[in-house]
């Protein structure tokens, strides 16, 4: 019962009251959409909603170091994840240093508070994606864009896949474009949440950012960001990442982080910042 009271509080304070951050993300999506639309219209291409999403959440082709082909970071892809992780970085530590100190002892248990924060982290990430998707859906409807999540090889003009492309005419990438980017943000958010109480929020954010940047540079199943790049999916390239493996890895990471955080938080010193 107390868990639901905490969760209700977290949803109100950590989501509803943070509406400005949702607007900021919607602005990013709007700018990205207009940029892609301008480029597509310049060459007379009509992209589907799925192809717009591919340009935003697709990431970047596997990087193979070669002369004259320097590494280019997938700025839009990175920005989407980093913004959401940044927006969810300080809520929990701030609560623990402030008002949370008055609520936690009233609850009678530490884990109620912790699992409420884990739930909030997941729900907040889902809400950020929901806002992005709603924004993209609305922009597509307003511009007469097909709501299909299918992509055609035309989209590779904007997000080149590199070598070893699996031939296809049309491909529905619903899980790669919707589920995997969301799960990546959720699992890195859970990692960040746990690290922020074990070490420091700033260190936790740097760790999440490092994983994302390293993922864009190096294709490896150990770097979870790879699963969030649709252009590196095994449905697009022959030596690509498998969606099912990504889903299992990310759920496992989230569960491990929640469990480790719970273990740590049972004996955690709840102090003020100055202490």
């Amino acid at each position: 019962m107390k868990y639901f009271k905490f969760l209700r509080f977290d949803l109100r304070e950590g989501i509803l009251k943070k509406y400005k951050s949702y607007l900021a993300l919607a602005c990013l999506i709007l700018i990205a959409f207009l940029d892609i639309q301008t480029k597509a219209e310049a060459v007379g291409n009509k992209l589907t909603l799925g192809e717009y999403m591919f340009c935003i959440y697709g990431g970047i082709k596997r990087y193979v170091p070669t002369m004259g082909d320097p590494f280019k970071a997938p700025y839009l892809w990175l920005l989407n994840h980093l913004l959401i992780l940044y927006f969810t970085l300080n809520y929990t530590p701030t609560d623990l240093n402030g008002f949370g100190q008055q609520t936690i002892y009233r609850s009678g248990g530490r884990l109620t508070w912790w699992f409420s924060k884990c739930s909030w982290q997941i729900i907040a990430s889902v809400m950020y994606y929901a806002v992005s998707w709603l924004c993209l859906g609305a922009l597509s409807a307003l511009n007469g864009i097909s709501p299909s999540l299918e992509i055609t090889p035309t989209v590779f003009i904007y997000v080149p896949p590199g070598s070893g492309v699996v031939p296809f005419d049309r491909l529905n990438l619903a899980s790669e474009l919707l589920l995997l980017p969301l799960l990546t943000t959720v699992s890195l958010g859970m990692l960040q949440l746990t690290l922020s109480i074990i070490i420091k929020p700033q260190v936790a954010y740097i760790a999440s950012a490092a994983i994302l940047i390293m993922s864009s540079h190096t294709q490896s199943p150990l770097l979870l960001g790879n699963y969030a790049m649709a252009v590196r999916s095994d449905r697009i390239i022959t030596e690509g990442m498998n969606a099912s493996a990504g889903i299992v890895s990310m759920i496992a990471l989230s569960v491990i982080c929640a469990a480790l955080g719970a273990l740590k938080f049972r004996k955690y010193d709840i102090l003020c910042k100055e202490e």
Partner: protein
Amino acid sequence: MAIIFKEVTKVIGNSVVIDNVDIIIPSNQITGFKGINGSGKTMLMRLIAGLIYPTTGTVSIDGKVLGKDITFPPSIGVMLENPAFLNGYTGYENLCLLADIKSEIDSDRIKEVLNIVGLTENMNKKYRKYSLGMKQRLGIAAAIMEKPDIVLLDEPTNSLDESGVEMVKKIVKAEKERGATVVMSCHDGEILDELADEVIEIKNGKIAGRYFPHESER
């Protein structure tokens, strides 16, 4: 509710903030912690509240060891130094949010306690507009509103004017009369000597002395 510290040491980072402390705080007594800033008073408060646990030794509440048998004392009200509330809510709303967790008291009791601390006129003002003294009063209200068995007040007279200090004295006496075990810290020895049944002096995380200010009256 009796509180017993048994050979308690607390290390945070590389510093020993509480050093092998033994304290017995009897039930329904006012106990004062006296010491300069950084002496360890607030850490002792946090140990009683269950917000931190000893590195070695035990803190027990009515025989139940914190961090082992119980996570937090079952009935406690805490006002730590510089209490934190939500800026976007009024004083009344902040207390309602806290009261909602245990659901033990109603809005009438919240209004009553706001009246006790002298905040009735400002109860509908946003917390961000509160003066330091008003914030302190709200912190005290939060600590006593649920009529807990243990009341912890860390520097309750900070930022308060003379009338505020008198209000604190009245509240502390009333809490004892109600049957609560009151633990308060203060750097002002006079206030402690007036209110406390026992004063424990803390220096560098150790007990530097203890006395009973009203012993001669017994």
